């Protein structure tokens, strides 16, 4: 009986000892967390060369601000300032009590969108609400407002909208202030305006720690899908708040000959972000890809419109949307 008890104890003890096979959790002091953040970005961020950022120099500037007595808030602020130098809206540090961000890609530019003007002067309660889309008819032209790629739609929503405007002179797709969302919705929407299969864009993914370690380019195509397509003139309205998935949408649509873009540059956001957990449990998000239009243009810094138009103050005072008015004039 004793030997069976001993055997059982050995088995249980052996199982419990497995923790010696695992390394310990990494150190959780401010310096270790700062270094972990810097290293994660150094080995994973995709735009150092494109943006001409010397990340080693950034380390020498910010590392002296951290020591083992640095408190959490101070550490967060120093890390946030360091990440701010990346000039990337896809870069955030989430500490639970706050989330760092860089919104310079739209804060330094005219807003170019006023929902009150659109709602009161153009929709006038005649608009339809189909899923996340708001649409109406303006001067025989279809107007479709899509506010966020985080709002999911399906094929039936698109079927209805395309069917409603099939006899319209054209369609205006207003994606101003659309900050992005789910990437899979981009081809779903764009395919309804595709005249044929076309190369939408290419992308590369970080596959090594060096700043220029990328996969071979991957081609992304868009082709007609769904019950019906609209291939008459289409105008997309953009402003600096068009970011991420919206940026990809504009990049995709610009390949169609019947599509034009009016407004301001998009805000950019051509890198798909990934997230990593730090030793202290904070999470850093950063871009891990680069994307290019078929002509090689890197869309990280934004996409220029075909017709640059800013909303004017005089129009705003008259409850007129300068950008929308220009689009309507182009479709007359």
């Amino acid at each position: 009986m004793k030997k069976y008890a001993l055997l059982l104890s050995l088995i249980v003890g052996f199982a419990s000892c497995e923790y010696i096979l695992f390394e310990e959790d990494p150190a959780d002091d401010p310096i270790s967390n700062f270094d972990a953040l810097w290293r994660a970005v150094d080995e994973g961020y995709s735009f150092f060369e494109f943006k001409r950022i010397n990340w080693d120099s950034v380390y020498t500037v910010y590392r002296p601000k951290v020591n083992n007595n640095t408190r959490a808030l101070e550490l967060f602020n120093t890390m946030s300032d360091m990440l701010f130098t990346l000039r990337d809206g896809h870069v955030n540090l989430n500490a639970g009590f706050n989330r760092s961000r860089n919104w310079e890609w739209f804060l330094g530019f005219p807003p170019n969108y006023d929902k009150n003007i659109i709602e009161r002067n153009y929709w006038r309660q005649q608009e339809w609400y189909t899923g996340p889309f708001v649409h109406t008819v303006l001067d025989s032209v279809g107007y479709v407002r899509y506010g966020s790629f985080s709002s999911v739609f399906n094929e039936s929503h698109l079927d209805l909208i395309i069917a409603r405007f099939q006899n319209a002179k054209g369609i205006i797709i207003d994606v101003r202030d659309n900050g992005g969302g789910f990437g899979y919705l981009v081809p779903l929407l764009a395919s309804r305006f595709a005249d044929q299969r076309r190369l939408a864009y290419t992308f590369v993914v970080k596959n090594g720690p060096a700043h220029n370690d990328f996969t071979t380019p991957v081609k992304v195509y868009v082709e007609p899908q769904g019950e019906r397509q609209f291939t008459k003139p289409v105008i997309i309205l953009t402003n600096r708040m068009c970011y991420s998935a919206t940026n990809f949408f504009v990049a995709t649509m610009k390949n169609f000959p019947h599509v034009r873009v009016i407004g301001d540059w998009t805000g950019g956001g051509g890198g798909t972000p990934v997230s990593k957990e730090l030793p202290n449990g904070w999470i850093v998000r950063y871009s891990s890809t680069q994307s290019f239009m078929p002509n090689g243009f890197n869309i990280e810094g934004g996409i220029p419109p075909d017709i640059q138009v800013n909303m004017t103050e005089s129009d705003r005072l008259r409850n007129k949307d300068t950008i929308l008015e220009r689009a309507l004039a182009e479709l007359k």
Partner: protein
Amino acid sequence: MSKCHIIIFQVIKRSTASACRALCYTVLLTLYAITALSGQSEDNARSKSAFHLKLGGGASLQTIRDQAMSPLLYNGIQIGIYAGIDVRGVRDLYRMDALFWLGETSSERSGRTSENYTYTINSSYLWRVSPDDARWNWHLGAAVTNWGSFRNHQSLINSNFFYDLFFSTGLTAATERHFRLFRRDWYADWQIIVPALTYGLRPNYSGLDVAPPDDDSFQGFADAQFVSFGKLLNVKSRIELVYPLLNGNRVGLLYYWDFFSTSIGAHPAQQSMQSAQLSLHVLLSKR
């Protein structure tokens, strides 16, 4: 995270409750069978050959450090189901164990959680190398194993899906012994499997698990390679206490331990699974 992953994990979440119920029913049925403890046959000597089907369930403790997911240690309780077969001949044994676990792990430091589902299928062919009258019956043989562990860490957007997928062949050894305890017949069985050659699949360098535009079929994101001990150290150990019932059926209490440490792909990972499974072995045929 792609639509596909969202749907899979919603299904798993909803099925957790039903899986708990299924586990309870399995345990109750097994306990009912065990109430025939007084019903051991007088002759519990091993048959010359026998084919047993094993079904059961239990729980496990999973411990993970996957550098692709986090530098922190994650652990948690999983619930599991177990199925297997034992095909025993005069001198040989074919055994297959299939275990599936479902649950969450969490980090003590960050408090974040990861939804996990893990399976392993181990097939072994063993040949008895000890004499017929030996107290300990030793077996040596070969094994083919398949391990899959999938984790969804919802706090890590676009890089929340992590996995280890191993297809291995290796060596195995087992020993078993009959003994009497509390005036009953018992068998103790210990088998160890050490994979020697593995085709392993781990997440890609960036951790990105969605290719714009969310193309789940994109294969370029996984790091897959043939490896041996230099890149994957894996040990699988099963200890089973078997209690023969009437008519050649049996009840088994299995302790299964699986540990690996790998540097396949860009980020090393270590994982262990300690599992206890209670099962009913139904005799399908014997000679």
